[in-house]
């Protein structure tokens, strides 16, 4: 149900706005630490090398994820098929062969860690399949903010497919506003500081830096269920809200949505996980605690194991759009771009433009945009430069066009 969620949002705002109240961040310090194993495993009905992540808890003040390395990971079915997994990256275990979950079979995950502990999941079954019928964007006003809401409709007649989780992957095209196919190179440097002398030469860029494609993955837990819904279908499930001035829709934007059908227990696990990390308020303080998944220690029943071994069906859909498909203006570029015009011939205070040009190009990553030759042949040109992100997108993105991309 949405009720609770809305309530929290509301109250969080209350807490922020109350004149005499305040909510302030504080840095987390671990008062006492509990080392617990984390299992993140979803196998699907897609034929592929399935992946399972095994990690451990780490200190609150740390940013470094701790992986469970050298564990023995396998999945067994009730027909005694065994799928072995091998560690392909730190803490990431990939099945040795490609396989897909099949309806009617039960799957059980077992993990043995290098320190000799072993863990096992409950037996899980593949839930029914549900397709994404529509994936679309709509211009909406969400609490006073105008933007594009990406929504999903499932197919009708969902049957026993009741609990859904969504993930998305968005890709957006970037076109830099001040591109020049040449790079400006500094050569023949004589002296240093304010007495510096140098030449500028131009060189064709080795790779194009005008058009790039960036990716984002959903980090939010997105859930939906058919409880309390009057139709045997999910409609208008909000997936991603893009504010109208968000640079991601300045050029073409694409979103791929994956719809997983889960068991009720898996849904519940994610739901609580989401709830406990959602906006809370000072006035309503949800009771937090340990969330029991379906993984257990085989040695000690009281040992905490975090995670859920999830067997899901999945359905995906991709759409493309940009701002011009909606009645909104051109969003701003990702960065604020300020063109800087520097005259090589000015080397006096207050601004030694010659020195500044040198430093900007060489050390501050500024990109060359254009130059104007002086009328006086004795004088050097005046250069226009711009911050790196405004002149070359490869500085922050990838210029490789994804295979799925449709312009």
């Amino acid at each position, binding site marked *: *149900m*949405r*009720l*609770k969620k*809305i*309530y929290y*949002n*509301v*109250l969080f*705002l*209350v*807490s922020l*706005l*109350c*004149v*005499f*109240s*305040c909510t*302030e*961040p*504080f840095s*987390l310090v*671990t*008062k006492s*630490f*509990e080392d617990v194993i*984390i299992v*993140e495993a979803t196998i699907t009905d897609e034929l592929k090398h399935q992946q399972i992540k095994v990690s451990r*808890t*780490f200190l*609150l003040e740390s940013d470094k*994820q701790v992986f469970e390395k050298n564990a023995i990971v396998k999945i067994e079915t009730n027909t005694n098929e065994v799928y072995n997994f091998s560690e392909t990256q730190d803490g990431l275990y990939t099945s040795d062969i490609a396989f897909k979950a099949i309806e009617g079979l039960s799957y059980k995950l077992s993990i043995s860690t290098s320190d000799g502990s072993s863990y096992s999941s409950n037996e899980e079954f593949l839930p029914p399949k549900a397709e994404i019928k529509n994936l679309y964007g709509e211009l909406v006003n*969400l*609490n*006073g*903010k105008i933007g594009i*809401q990406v929504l999903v409709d499932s197919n009708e007649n969902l049957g026993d497919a009741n609990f859904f989780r969504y993930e998305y992957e968005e890709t957006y095209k970037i076109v830099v506003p001040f591109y020049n196919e040449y790079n400006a190179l500094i050569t023949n440097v004589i002296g240093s500081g304010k007495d510096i002398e140098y030449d500028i030469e131009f060189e064709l860029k080795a790779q194009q830096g005008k058009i790039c494609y960036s990716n984002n*993955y959903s*980090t939010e837990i997105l859930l939906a269920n058919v409880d309390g*819904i*009057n*139709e045997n279908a999910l*409609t*208008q499930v909000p997936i991603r809200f893009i504010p109208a001035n968000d640079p991601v829709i300045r050029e073409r934007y694409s979103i791929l949505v994956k719809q997983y059908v889960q068991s009720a227990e898996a849904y519940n696990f*994610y739901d609580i*996980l989401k709830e*406990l*990390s*959602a906006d*809370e*308020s*000072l*006035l309503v*303080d*949800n*009771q937090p*605690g340990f969330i*029991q998944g379906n993984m257990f220690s085989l040695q000690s029943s009281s040992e*905490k194991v*975090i995670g859920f071994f999830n067997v899901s069906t999945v359905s995906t859909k991709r759409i493309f759009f940009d701002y011009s498909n909606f009645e909104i203006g051109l969003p701003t570029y990702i960065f604020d771009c300020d063109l800087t015009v520097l005259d090589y011939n000015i080397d006096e205070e207050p601004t030694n433009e010659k020195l500044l040009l040198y430093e900007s190009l060489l050390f501050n990553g500024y990109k060359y945009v254009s130059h104007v030759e002086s009328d006086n042949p004795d004088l050097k040109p005046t250069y226009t430069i711009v911050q790196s992100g405004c002149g070359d997108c490869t500085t922050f993105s990838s210029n490789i066009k994804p295979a799925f991309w449709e312009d």
Partner: protein
Amino acid sequence: MKIIKITCLFILLSHVAFCQSKEKISITFNEVEIVEALSELERVSSYKFYFNKTWFNNSFLISKSFNDVSLEDVLTEILEDTTINYFVLNGKIILTNNNIIRDKLPPNFFGTELTVEAEEIEEEVDKVPVLKKQYLNRSKINKTKIFYIGKESESSSQKMITLSGYIKDEKTKKPIQNLDVFIQGTSINTVTNNLGYYSLKVPMGFNVLEIASLAYGKHQKQIVVYGKGTLSFQLSEATEQLEEVVIKSDRNENIKSATVGVTKIDVKGIKNIPLILGERDVLKVATTMPGIKTAGEGALGYSVRGGKVDQNLILFDGAAIYNPSHFFGVFSAINPFATGSVDIYKGSIPAEFGGKLSSVIDISTKEANMEKFSGEGNIGPVTGNLLIETPIIKDKISVLVGGRATYSDWVLKAISEESIKNSKANFYDAIIKFNYKINEKNDLQATGYYSNDEFSITSDSVYNYSNRIGSIKWDHKFNDKNRLTTQLASSQYKFNIIYDGIFNRNFDFGYSINETELKLKAKYLYSKKHKFSYGLSSKLYSIKPGDIVPLGGESVIERKSVDKERGLESALFISNLFEVNDKLLLDIGFRYSFYAALGASTQNVYDPTVPISAESIIETKTYEENEVIKTYGGPEVRFSARYFLTPSISIKGGYNRTIQYSHLLSSNTTASPVDSWKLSDLNIEPQRAEQFSLGLYKNFDDGIHELSIEGYYKKMKNLLDFKIGAELLLNQDIETELLQGDGKAYGIEFLLKKKEGRLNGWLGYSYSRSFVKLDSEFLTNQINSGDYFAANQDRPHDVSLVSNYKLTKRYSFSLNFNYQSGRPITYPVGKYIYNGEEQVLYSDRNKFRIPDYYRLDLGVNIEGNHKNVKLAHSFWNISVYNVLGRNNPYSVFFVNENGQIKGYKSSIFSIPVPTITYNFKF
């Protein structure tokens, strides 16, 4: 002057012989005053009359006809109902007030021939005439007025004479209740009843009637009692006491009564306590007393002696009030002007109350002014409050109407933040009370109350909650020994959430709980040693646990409603206040409560061998309308005793059992206004508790200082808790989310009060612990491995200092200081990455604490000028809440922002909050 005159007359006349008149007269009086009647008599008879006109100032009218009777008969008859005696002397009629003119000396006037009757003289005074010399000397010294009571009669054989009267407040003209009235130097005493009426048997002759009260100070009336009579008078609130913060207790009540763990809040006295945003709050004052706590500013509910917030029976004129707060507990919903008294029973709960585990908070509104139109109001920064009282028929019917409302949501509007400009928060409450004194034996009162809160922060949702209360009470007095109170009370609490967003999931969700109770309570004053109180009550609950309705044609939300719940809670109770001897007083109470969960309903039966869940249902039973689903019940012993160690030190002990059949469903660490109530049913057992308490009480300096130390130990069973992330709204099978466990609480409470003087106030300290155990044979239903852990309301140390200093009549200063241990929280013990974002792993429940809480408030009250006669009495209150600007964290929470866990702590009123309030009274 009058006294002197009469005295002279007396002395002169005592030497003159008495002469009987023989004259017969016929006369008719038609609605004439006595003075006129006497003049008329003087005209028709041959006698001259001597009297003082002022004696007849307030006399009644006479309509009477006499035919051929003696003058004496006429006089006797018309003076019968007055305090006037007459004396006939040589063609003159001498009237005297109170005393008799005697023509012979009383026996033993000059000597002592008392030999035979000596043993008769016990407490009672001999029948002797009242002679001036008994009191003359004293009155000369004191120079105060002497009141002459009654008419002396020569035939009377009474030795003790009944003196009665009404005592009223000079300003408000309202009866003063519970006023101690006693005769100096004797053990004769009484207290005034709710009409301000007192009645005493006093010895004839000179006495000093004394009245003592905290609010009215000490007053003495010199009286000379001749015969049965009345003395009614008015008292003005002692100006010295006017601004004092006092915890009302009757004279030595704290050491005298048998009950352990009772707190009385003097509503008048709270006006000096510094305020938050100008709101006077009776219940907030209560939390400065040991044993009563809140989770913090902005927390709903009260925790009494380690109990949970849903374990308090809050009665408002006899009707339960479910959520007596506005704006998430920042303000109380109880109108302070309408409130007459607040009694909080945290230890010994009288047998007449039941249904909640921890305490009874009994709030009574005051009686509407029967004398004249009056009112009271205040203007604060957030709300305005006005209360008006007026008689409809003087001294018979009166009505009180009060209301309070927020001016506007300027607090929210003041924020420049764009996204919350659309938000609003409004509240109001209103009260109406009706008093009808049918006659001396019958009293009727009716109260209606409504409070409403509405708030909306985002433009798409509106929250609303309200309390509605109605009660009617009829007091009937059969005779001096038997009284019956019949009360019908009904209350409703409901909340509503309207979500009207941009997607197709708009809905209107509503919840309501109703209860109606009929209660009959009788009092039987069997003897001085045994006073019985008995009765029965029956309460019908009706809960609509929720229905959700799609809003708008496009909404895909399914219309859904959870079955209505009904239950009948009944009880029989009897208690005997047994005064074993002067030292030992027992209050023996017994209550038998009985609960029946009623259909129509469907109830699940679960497989007991596995944890209950939707999968473990083995049967679903269906019940018809009014069919009994399940019954619970049990005896509830309420026993307490007092023993005087010395006249000013008493020791008290108590044992108390309670059963609770209705439960608040909350998966939060603190309560919220949209938490719903649930009745016990097939799967949810009632909560039970027993408490032992022991206390030592001492008064010193003539009751100015009171000291008490109380300890308690409490055991609780079937406390409700929920699984992590439990979904409680619209859940038909709530028991699948439920964990029921045991609790225990113990503590020691210390309170020192100074009740009078320029500096007054109190200092309270309590050390208290509260634990919960949620154990189960199933691992998934255990919390903290099934061991006892600190409950959410466990805050061991609690210090409160409330004090007032009166500088002059107009200026007084007040100070509040409060320190409390931080409440327990569940804190992260590590983090991990799941689903691409950071999550935290929480510790065992309530293993850590938020930082300690402390706060200092200061206030000053400036009275209007007392000298001028003004339309309204007014005063200004200037206060600063949280002077130290202590940032007391109220909650600590962890939010996932862009995949990263961030810790936040929030506090309310973390900066000093100054407030000015204007109060007036007319």
